[in-house]
C-alpha cells in the first residue's frame, strides 16, 4: 500500500496546525508493540482461543511427541533409558538397512518392494473397479434395484479389518486330517484353478497367493463404497448432454466415450493422483492380520517389518529408522501429488 500524506497528518482548521492522524498513531503502536497487541487480541477473544486448546494438546501429546521419539533412529536402542539419555550412534541403522549386506537389509528392501507392489497392484486392479461399478450403476434405471445393489456393495466396508480378515482366513483355511479346507479354496479347486495339495495346505500359507488374496479382498471390501464418488459425478452430468449426443447419432459406446468419460474425468484424475500419492502408505493392520511366517516373502511390508523388530523384538531404533524412511518418501509423494492435483483442477485434499 502506498503511503499517503493524509494517513499521517491531518490539518486542524480550528487551531490552524497539522496534527498527527489518530488512526496512524494506533497503527504505529501496533507496529511497535506487536506482541502486546497479539496478547490483547487473544485476551479479548479468549473464548475462541480456549476452544483450540484441547485439539492442540491432543495433537501435541499423541502426534508430535512421537516425532520426538524418532530421535531413537540415531541412537543406540536401550530398553530402560529414555531417548534423550541414549548414546548417539549416527546413521548406523540407516546404513545397516540400506547397504548392510546382511539378512536385515535384504529383508528391509524386500519389505519396501512389497509395500510398493501391494499398492501398485491396488492401483492397477483396485482403482478401475469402482469406476466400472459406477458406470454400471448408472445403467440401471430402476431405483429399487439400483439402491439394493448399492447397499449390498457398500456393506463390506462397514466390517472391521478384524472381521474381514477373519472371514478371509476362514474361507481359504487349510484342511487337516479331520477337517476339510475353506469353502473358497474348495471352489477354486473344483474349478481347476489350484491343485488339491496347494488348496489343502491353506492359500494364506502360500506366498504366491498373498497378493491376489490381498487385492481381491480389497476390492470386495472397498469397490462398492469407492464407487459413490464416481456415481455422484456421473449423475451430475446434465441429461441434455445425452440427448444432444443421441440426436447426433451417438450409440451407447460413443456416449460413454464423449459424454460420460469427460464428465467424470476430473474426479478420476483427482482420485488417481491421491492414490499415487499414497503409494507407500498402506494400512498395516490388514497385512498384519493376514500374513504369517510362510508368506513374509510377498507379504511383509515396512510397517509390519517395524512392528516385528520394534514392538515384538527389541530393535526399536532400527525399526523406527526403517519406517521413517518409508514415511518421509511417502510424505514427499503425497505433497507432490497434492501440488499436481491443485494445479490440474483447483481441487486439493488439504
Amino acid at each position, binding site marked *: 500500500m502506498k503511503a499517503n500524506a493524509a494517513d499521517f497528518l491531518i490539518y486542524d482548521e480550528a487551531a490552524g496546525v497539522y496534527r498527527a492522524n489518530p488512526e496512524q498513531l494506533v497503527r504505529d503502536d501496533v507496529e511497535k508493540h506487536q506482541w502486546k497487541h497479539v496478547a490483547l487480541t487473544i485476551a479479548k477473544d479468549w473464548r475462541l482461543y480456549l476452544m483450540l486448546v484441547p485439539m492442540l494438546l491432543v495433537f501435541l501429546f499423541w502426534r508430535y511427541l512421537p516425532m520426538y521419539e524418532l530421535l531413537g533412529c540415531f541412537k543406540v536402542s536401550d530398553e530402560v533409558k529414555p531417548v534423550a539419555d541414549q548414546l548417539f550412534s549416527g546413521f548406523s541403522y540407516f546404513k545397516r538397512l540400506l547397504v548392510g549386506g546382511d539378512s536385515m537389509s535384504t529383508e528391509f528392501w524386500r519389505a519396501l518392494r512389497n509395500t510398493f507392489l501391494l499398492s501398485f497392484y491396488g492401483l492397477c486392479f483396485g482403482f478401475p473397479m469402482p469406476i466400472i461399478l459406477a458406470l454400471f450403476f448408472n445403467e440401471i434405471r430402476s431405483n429399487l434395484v439400483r439402491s439394493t445393489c448399492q447397499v449390498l456393495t457398500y456393506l463390506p466396508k462397514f466390517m472391521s479389518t478384524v472381521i474381514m480378515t477373519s472371514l478371509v482366513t*476362514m474361507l481359504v483355511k487349510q484342511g487337516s486330517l479331520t477337517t476339510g479346507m475353506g469353502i473358497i479354496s474348495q471352489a477354486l479347486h473344483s474349478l481347476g484353478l489350484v491343485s488339491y495339495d496347494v488348496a489343502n495346505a491353506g492359500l494364506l500359507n502360500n506366498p504366491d497367493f498373498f497378493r491376489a488374496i490381498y487385492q481381491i479382498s480389497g476390492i470386495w471390501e472397498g469397490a462398492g463404497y469407492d464407487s459413490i464418488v464416481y456415481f455422484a459425478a456421473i449423475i451430475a452430468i446434465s441429461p441434455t448432454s445425452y440427448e444432444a449426443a443421441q440426436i447426433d447419432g451417438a450409440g451407447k459406446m460413443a456416449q460413454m466415450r464423449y459424454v460420460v468419460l469427460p464428465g467424470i474425468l476430473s*474426479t478420476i484424475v483427482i482420485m488417481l493422483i491421491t492414490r499415487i500419492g499414497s503409494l507407500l502408505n498402506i494400512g498395516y493392520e490388514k497385512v498384519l492380520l493376514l500374513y504369517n511366517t510362510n508368506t513374509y516373502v510377498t507379504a511383509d511390508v515396512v510397517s509390519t517389518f*517395524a512392528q516385528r523388530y520394534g514392538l515384538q523384538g527389541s530393535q526399536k531404533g532400527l525399526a523406527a529408522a526403517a519406517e521413517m524412511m518409508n514415511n518421509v518418501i511417502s510424505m514427499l509423494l503425497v505433497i507432490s501429488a497434492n501440488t499436481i492435483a491443485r494445479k490440474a483442477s483447483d481441487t486439493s485434499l488439504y
Partner: protein
Amino acid sequence: MKRKLETSEMIFKVISYTFLSIFALACLYPFLYAVSASISGGHAVDYGEVVLFPKDVQFEAFARMFNDNMFWNAYSNTLFLTFYGTIWALFVAILGGYALSKKRLLFRRFFNFFLVFTMLFSAGLVPQYLNYLDTKAVFNAMGITDDKWLVVIAMGMAAMNIILLRNAFEGVPSEIEEAAIVDGATEFQVLKKVYIPMCKSTIATVALFFAISRWNGYFWARQMISNSNEHPLQVFIRLRLEEFTDPEAMTGWNEIYSSDSVIYALIVCSIVPILIIYPFIQKYFAKGVNAGGVKE
C-alpha cells in the same frame, strides 16, 4: 439407425445387470455363508458340505458363546470405547474445527498446518508405541489404571474429520453469527445455538466416522490394553480366531458342532448390530465421501 442404437443399449444393459448382480451377490455371500456355517452341524462344516444353506441345524455354537462371560465383557468394553471415544473425539473436533473456521483467528495458517502435517507425516509404529507407553505410565501415576481410558483419550483423533467440520462451519453465513453476538451471545452460545444446529448433518457424519473407527479399533487396543478383561470385541475375536484355527490346539475337539462354527458365530454376532443400524447411517456415510474432496 434407431435399431442399432437400441441393440447396443440393450447389450450394455444386460452386461451391467449381470455384472452388478454377480458383484452384489459376491459381496453378500461371505456373510450368508458365515450365518449358515455358524448354525450347521460339525461334520457338515468340517467337510465343506455347507455351501449356502445350513445343514444339520444346531445352535450350540451360539449357546457356547452366549454363555461365555468374556464375550459379553468384550462387547461391553467395545460399547464403552465407542461411546466415550466418540464423545471425546467430537468434543475436541467441534471446538477445534469451530476455532479454525474463524478468519479472525490469529496464526490461523500455523494452526492449520499443525493439523495437516499430521496427515502428511506420521512418526510410525515404534515411536507411537513408546509414546503410548509413556502416556500409560503418566495415567497410572495419576491413578487411572484402567487402560480403556488411555485408548479413549489418546487414540482415534483424525485431522481429516476436524477439517471436514472446519469447512462446514466456514459455510455458515457470518451475518447469523453477528446477529447472535449483537443479541449478547458469547462464543460458546453462538457455537451451541447457531453453528451446531446448522451443521447437524456434517457433525452426524463426523460422529459416524469416529464411532466406526472406535468400534473397529484393533491394533493399539491389543498392544496397550494389558488386562484381558478389558479387551474390546475385535481383540477378543482375533484371539479366538488364533486359538481356534491352530490345528494342534484343536485335536481334542469333541463337540457336535465344528470349532469353525464358533468363529462364524462370533463374526455374525459382531456384524448384527452394525446391520441393524446400517440402514439409518448409510446416507451419512455416503455424504462424507462427497465432502472428502475439499477446497481451500
